[in-house]
């Protein structure tokens, strides 16, 4: 009887694994060169990944992988995840944050204007931060680029639903006197007003 109860519990647990709508959940398609990283895609799979030095910095299932907060004079873009650990989840929260006055937005649809554009992260209008377990450190970027390879406005059954941002990023920077490198970064994320995009007119 106990065994049956365990089996039922396991079945319920399995059923609840994917109780997230398709467009909000992350879908991991491995990169053919390194299966720890997500492949570059343009479907809005809500993934990102990069090498942080030689570790893998990747989205996780707890945090929203991408958030955009627009203010009247700046915009903050956040990639939220963790350092990949094989076979177990890493508790350390890691975020890469890009703040800029070069991109001014009022709603998620304004990202259409960024389609195909690249931004140099060492430009004075950009500030880049690395946050580990809530401790935010400003990076002094030597070289770096953020590319919005493709920005799509998604209509589902003819109705506007969300934006999809796909692209690449990499940088090398000084952090507390040490050189760090973020390389082979790629992202494919959905963006929706009132969900992971907000406009704060202050």
């Amino acid at each position, binding site marked *: 009887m106990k065994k049956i109860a365990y089996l039922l519990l396991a079945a319920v647990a399995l059923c609840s694994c994917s109780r997230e709508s*398709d467009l909000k959940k992350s*879908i991991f398609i491995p990169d053919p060169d390194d299966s720890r990283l997500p492949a570059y895609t343009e479907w809005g799979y809500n993934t990102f990944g990069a090498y942080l030095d030689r570790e893998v910095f990747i989205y996780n299932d707890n945090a929203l992988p991408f958030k955009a907060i627009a203010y009247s004079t700046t915009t903050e873009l956040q990639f939220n995840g963790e350092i990949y650990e094989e076979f177990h989840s890493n508790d350390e929260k890691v975020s890469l944050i890009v703040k800029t006055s070069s991109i001014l937005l009022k709603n998620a649809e304004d990202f259409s204007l960024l389609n195909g554009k690249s931004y140099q992260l060492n430009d004075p209008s950009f500030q880049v931060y690395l946050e580990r377990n809530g401790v935010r450190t400003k990076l002094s970027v030597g070289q770096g680029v953020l590319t919005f390879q493709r*920005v799509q406005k998604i209509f*589902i*059954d003819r109705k506007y639903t969300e934006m999809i941002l796909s692209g690449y990023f990499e940088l090398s920077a000084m952090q507390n006197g040490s050189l760090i490198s973020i390389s082979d970064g790629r992202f494919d994320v959905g963006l929706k007003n009132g969900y992971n995009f907000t406009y704060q007119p202050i």
Partner: protein
Amino acid sequence: MVKPQKLLYTTLLAISIGAAAQGQELKRLSLGIDCGTSTYSTDLKENDAIRATSSVTFFDQSGSYDLRTSTHRTYYGIKAELLSSSGYLGISTGIRYTQVKSEINRDSWFSYSKTKFYVLYNQNGTNTEYAQVEKVTQKADYLGIPLDFRFYTTRPRFFRLFFKLGFDFSMRVGNKNTVDFLTTSMNPYEQQVGRAIGTPSSVLTTFNPGLGFKLGDTDGVNVSFELNAPSYIISTNASTFAKNRIGIGAQLYIYYPIL
């Protein structure tokens, strides 16, 4: 010394057997109709228009483990069979209409999103349009030539067992993708979504070894029934979303010796 009476009986018997053999002279060419069906085990094939529904994991090497596919083949045709002089080998060919039907839908067991999946059907500038789809049925019609080699285990008689090596080579003459949308308001876009799903290959080749039996007199209507296992679709793109693996099928052939 052989008794004359015995000799007479023996002669009469030989004459009657000879006459009977003359009457049942083997007709080597038969003409008939055949029909059959096969069903195949399938895996999902990556399709540029179908959004993945799940992550690739160690256990699930596909990004859509809950998308289910299937493929069935049905065919009808006219076929002539030529028997070898010994009657042990039959070679048959003719003309055959084949329909390959593939389906894709989503298993609702583990999914909150029930049975829908997304098909990308239009991209224009930065605008991208998806349709929420419950099922796609892809039908491709082919016209072609079967080629069967039947190896009979006995000389011609009422009941015979045989082994078969069967092939067919066909050209596509039509196809249609039928889309079941989540909402009926999308029905006017069926053609557009169907086009995004793609068109199956223009050539179909199948290989169907089999085992069967035939019933019927050498000069009357014959019925043969066979089991095709394993059955294969050799063409790689017979479906734009299903990889066809091994199959099993059956064939019925009704024919009449004419020459």
